[in-house]
């Protein structure tokens, strides 16, 4: 039997709440974090998309000015979320040689990179700040969290586009099971609401253009969906070997029972329409968790609100869970948070843990006319989950054909 791993700490900074309690209260109420972007660059570059889901609490309100100065916004979000998760875990004494970090990002320090390029062109090489490289590197968030908490059992950065955050949780589980660490702070961070990524995602027609109604733009499974809404922020989880958590009398939220990561090898951006890679990930994750399809009561779906993306996930769920899929309460929380790219899986893992703790599934908003090709039982009103031993899934998929699934079990 592999070591049993449990979740003992949660942290988040998101468009619907700057900490976990605020985010979760909003997720159960059903709010949109999407707003028109109040920045002069939207008009300056005539961006075709003028809105996004920005964090509700700027990192500058949480970190000191000097801390923030040395971190790309993606790293700022990571540190904010990781500190909350760490405090929440209540860990006071720990051999830090046994503490690891697995913190993902999809895009990395894009603000730092492009600001430095502007500086180089406008003011010359001497004005490019010496902190530029450590700020733009994709391992920046993981390194900063490691430094902040003193974690010395390795600091890892899985990068798999929008599956990154979930893959970080997967990696965390592997680190504990393999005996390389007893405690892992895992999560994902993203800060890419910058004109260039917006232009690039818009150019591939991945973004919603509902500029006049930002709050209604992220509408997974709705027939009127026209793309995702860029989000930003971070999610973090403290995961721990069960024996370690029990020995210190920790409050345990849920068991991180199993994970799986697969690749489609189908197309660089398009999901396999039959969802074969996602199906394999779902089945393997359930097997890894020693769970049956019929144990599953709740899925936090990837469901980004793109016309092409939402359906293959349904096909995969139907294939992996069989007719039991009709009994599963599916939440598409990107309808509220927007798509946090490399952070989305981590934020959704946090929500799924809380759904198990409170036996309540978070809401999907903006579902007015459900796509008849996606007949899932979508949670649009407060929904209680069953008592007893229950299992919930969180799915993430990323450009490149990455599929990542985590399986959580109630305590």
């Amino acid at each position, binding site marked *: 039997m592999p070591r049993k791993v449990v979740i003992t700490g949660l942290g988040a900074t998101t468009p619907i709440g700057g900490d976990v309690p605020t985010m979760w209260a909003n997720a159960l109420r059903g709010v949109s974090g999407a707003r028109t972007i109040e920045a002069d660059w939207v008009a300056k570059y005539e961006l075709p998309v003028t809105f996004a889901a920005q964090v509700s609490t700027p990192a500058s309100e949480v970190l*000191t*000015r*000097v801390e923030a*100065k040395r971190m790309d916004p993606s790293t700022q979000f990571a540190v904010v979320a990781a500190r909350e998760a760490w405090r929440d875990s209540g860990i006071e004494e720990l051999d830090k040689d046994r503490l690891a970090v697995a913190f993902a990002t999809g895009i990395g320090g894009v603000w730092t990179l492009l600001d430095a390029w502007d500086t180089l062109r406008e003011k010359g090489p*001497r*004005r490019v*700040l*010496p*902190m530029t490289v450590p700020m733009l590197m994709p391992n920046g968030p993981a390194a900063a969290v490691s430094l902040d908490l003193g974690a010395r059992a390795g600091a890892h950065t899985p990068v798999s586009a929008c599956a990154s955050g979930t893959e970080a949780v997967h990696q965390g589980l592997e680190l504990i099971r393999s005996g390389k660490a007893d405690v892992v702070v895992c999560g994902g961070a993203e800060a890419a609401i910058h004109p260039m990524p917006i232009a690039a995602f818009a150019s591939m027609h991945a973004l919603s253009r509902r500029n006049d109604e930002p709050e209604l733009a992220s509408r997974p499974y709705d027939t009127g969906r026209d793309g995702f809404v860029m989000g930003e922020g971070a999610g973090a989880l403290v995961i721990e070997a069960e024996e370690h958590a029990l020995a210190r009398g920790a409050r345990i939220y849920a068991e991180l029972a199993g994970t799986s990561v697969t690749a489609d090898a189908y197309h660089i951006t398009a999901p396999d329409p039959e969802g074969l890679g996602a199906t394999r990930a779902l089945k393997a994750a359930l097997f890894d968790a020693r769970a049956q399809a019929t144990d599953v009561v709740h899925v936090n779906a990837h469901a980004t609100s793109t016309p092409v993306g939402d359906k293959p996930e349904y096909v995969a769920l139907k294939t992996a869970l069989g007719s039991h899929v009709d009994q599963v309460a599916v939440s598409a929380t990107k309808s509220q948070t927007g798509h946090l790219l490399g952070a989305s899986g981590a934020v959704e893992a946090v929500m799924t843990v809380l759904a198990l703790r409170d036996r309540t599934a978070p809401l999907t908003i903006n579902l007015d006319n459900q796509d008849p090709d996606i007949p899932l039982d979508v949670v649009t009103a407060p929904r209680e989950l069953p008592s007893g031993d229950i299992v919930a899934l969180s799915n993430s998929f990323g450009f490149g054909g990455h599929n990542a699934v985590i399986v959580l079990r109630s305590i």
Partner: protein
Amino acid sequence: MASNEEILTGLAEIVNEETGLAPESVEMDKSFTDDLDIDSISMMTIVVNAEEKFGVRIPDEEVKNLKTVGDAVNFISGAQA
């Protein structure tokens, strides 16, 4: 041209912006590394910001000679002359 007093005040502002150290702790006899705990990356940022603020050029090979705040103030003062 700024007086040494004005240069010290300006330099203290730059140091505060980069490190968070209180401006009044930035005194002429303080060592950047031993007293103020400023690492080489912060030092380079301070140097470049000082160049812009005081309109001078501080060559890289000169930076290692600026051990104290007073060394920097005197160098900037001399470079402005």
